[in-house]
C-alpha cells in the first residue's frame, strides 16, 4: 500500500514536471533570446541560453526603433481608459447594488454588460473605424481611450458588482442615520471600503487595455498613436525577423501584466470569469 503511494506520487510529479516543461520552456527560450547579442543569432545550432547575455536588444527596441514612445502611448491610453471605465462602472453598479433596484433592472444591466463580452471586436471595429474617421480622431489617442473604455466596461461593472455586494448595506445606513447625506455616506464610508475593489478591478482592466491589439492596429497608423502591441506585431510579421529584438519586445509586453498580476493575483480569475469564481 505504502509502496503504491510512493509510486503514484512519483508518477504525479513526473506528469506535473512534463506539464511545466511544456508551458515553461517556450517562455525560457523567449527570455534567453531577448538577452542574446546579435552574433549569437546566426550560429549554426542556436543555444538555449545566451553565452554572453546583454541588454542590447532591449536598448535597440526601445530607443533605436523608438518603441519607448509606443510604450508611453500604451501607458497613457491604459491609465485614462481604466480610470474612465472604473468611474463609469461605479456609477452603474452603485444604484443596482446599494439601492433597492428592482430585480428586472439589475438583471437587465448585468445581462447587457455580459452580452457585450460576446461581441467579437472585429465586428465592432468596422463601424468604429467609420465613426472615428468621421470625428477626425483617426490615429489619435482619444479614439483608443474611448473605445477601450467602452469595451472593458462590462468587466469593470461585473467585478465592482461582486465586491460592492459584499459590503453590508448597514455601513452606509449607519452613517446616514447619524445625519450624513447619501453623498457623504458614499464618499466617506463606501468609497474607502471599496479601495480593494477599485484597485483590483483597475489592475485587471489596465492589463486588458495594455494587451489590446486589434482596435489599436486598425485605428492608428503612425508611432504618434500606435500602442506597444502594434509595434511588437511589426517585429513578428516582418520579412526577416530579428530574433532578439522581437523577443525583447515580447518580454516587455509580458512584463507589465505579469507584475500587475502578482499584485492582484487573487482577482485575475475573478475578473476573467466576470466574478463567478471568487478566491477566498
Amino acid at each position, binding site marked *: 500500500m505504502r509502496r503504491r503511494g510512493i509510486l503514484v506520487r512519483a508518477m504525479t510529479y513526473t506528469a506535473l514536471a512534463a506539464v511545466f516543461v511544456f508551458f515553461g520552456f*517556450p517562455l525560457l527560450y523567449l527570455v534567453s533570446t531577448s538577452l542574446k547579442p546579435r552574433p549569437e543569432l546566426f550560429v549554426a545550432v542556436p543555444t538555449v541560453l545566451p553565452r554572453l547575455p546583454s541588454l542590447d536588444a532591449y536598448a535597440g527596441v526601445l530607443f533605436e526603433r523608438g518603441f519607448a514612445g509606443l510604450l508611453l502611448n500604451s501607458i497613457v491610453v491604459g491609465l485614462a481608459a481604466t480610470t474612465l471605465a472604473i468611474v463609469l462602472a461605479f456609477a452603474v453598479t452603485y444604484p443596482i447594488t446599494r*439601492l433597492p433596484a428592482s430585480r428586472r433592472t439589475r438583471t437587465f444591466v448585468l445581462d447587457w454588460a455580459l452580452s457585450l*463580452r*460576446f461581441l467579437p471586436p472585429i465586428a*465592432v471595429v468596422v*463601424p468604429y473605424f467609420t465613426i472615428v474617421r468621421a470625428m477626425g480622431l483617426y490615429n489619435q489617442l482619444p479614439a483608443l481611450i474611448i473605445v477601450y473604455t467602452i469595451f472593458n466596461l462590462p468587466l469593470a461593472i461585473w467585478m465592482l458588482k461582486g465586491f460592492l455586494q459584499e459590503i453590508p448595506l448597514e455601513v452606509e445606513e449607519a452613517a446616514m442615520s447619524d445625519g450624513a447625506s447619501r453623498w457623504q455616506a458614499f464618499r466617506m464610508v463606501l468609497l474607502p471600503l471599496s479601495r480593494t475593489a477599485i484597485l483590483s478591478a483597475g489592475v485587471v482592466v489596465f492589463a486588458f487595455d495594455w494587451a489590446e491589439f*486589434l482596435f489599436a492596429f486598425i485605428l492608428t497608423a503612425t508611432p504618434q498613436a500606435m500602442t506597444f502591441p502594434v509595434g511588437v506585431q511589426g517585429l513578428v510579421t516582418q520579412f526577416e525577423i530579428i530574433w532578439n529584438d522581437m523577443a525583447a519586445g515580447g518580454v516587455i509586453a*509580458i512584463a507589465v501584466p505579469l507584475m500587475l*498580476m502578482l499584485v492582484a493575483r487573487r482577482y485575475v480569475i475573478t475578473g476573467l470569469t466576470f466574478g463567478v*469564481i471568487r478566491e477566498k
Partner: protein
Amino acid sequence: MTLALRLRSGWAKRSRQEQLVYRLLLPVFVPLFFVATLPFLIAVYESLTSSSGAFVGLANFERALGNPALYTSLRQTAIYGLVVLPTEILLGLGIALLVHRTVSSPGVRAAIYIAAMVPIVIPQIAVGVVFRLVFAPDYGILNILLGSTGHEQILWLSTPALAMLSVATVDIWQWTPFVYLVLFAGLQAVPQETVEAAQVDGAGPWTQFRHIELVYLRPLLLLVLFFRLADVLRVFDAVYVLTGGGPGTTTEFLSLYLYRVGFRFSDLPQASALAVVVMAGMLLFYNAISRFLPAERA
C-alpha cells in the same frame, strides 16, 4: 395623456429610494447603452449603402452571404473550436484532478497556482512572439530539436496540414491553465464529508469523480465553455501574427476573414454587412446559451 398620467402615478408610487435608483442609473446608463449600440446602427446603415454612400438595399448582404470564403472561414473556426475546446477542458480537468488528489503541500499548490496564471496574463501578441520562437525554421525550438535528431526541418506554420494544429496548440498552451484554475477552484468547494462518506461506502476514484465531483463541477464546466467559446469566436491577434490566416485560408477564422474583407480589400460595405450578421448572430447565440450559466448573475 392617459399614458403620461399612468406613468406619473407609477413613478409616484415608488419609494424615494427606488426613484433614486433610476435618477442615478439612467443618466449614465442610457448614454452608455447608446454608445455601445451605436456601432451596430452604423454597421446597419453602412451595410445598406455602397462605398460612395448610395442606398443599395440588400446587395451587400447578398455579396457577403454569397461569398464561399465566408463558409470556409466558418468551417475552419468550427474545426478550431472542436480541436481546442475539448482538449483544453479534458487536459485542464485532468491536471486539476491530479493536483487535487495527490498534491497536498500548500506551498506546491500555491506555486502551481501562480505558474498557471502566467500564460493567461500574457498579451496575445506576445503569445505570437513566443510561438514564433517555437515554430520558426532554423531558430525555432522544434526545428532545433528535429535537427539534433537528424530530421529535416518542418515548416509548422506554412504547411497546410500542420498550420491548424500549430495554432490550436498555441490556444491550448495559453488557455488550459485557465480551465485548470477554474476547475481546481471548483474541486476545493466539494464538501470533504461527502467524499469521505463515499469512500467509507467503498467508492473508488472513478465513482468519486463521476458521482460527486462532476456534480459540483458541472456549472463551472459550462462557465468555462461559455467563456472559451466567446474567445474562439473572436480569436485574432496570435493567429494573425503567426500565420496571417494562411497558408491559403487554412487558418482564416471568422475574425481574420472579416479583417481581410474590410481592411485588406477595403470593402467596408461588405464588411459591414458581415459585421451586422455576426453581431446579430452572436446576440442570438448569447441569448440561447446564457440561461445555462450559473445563477450568480443577479
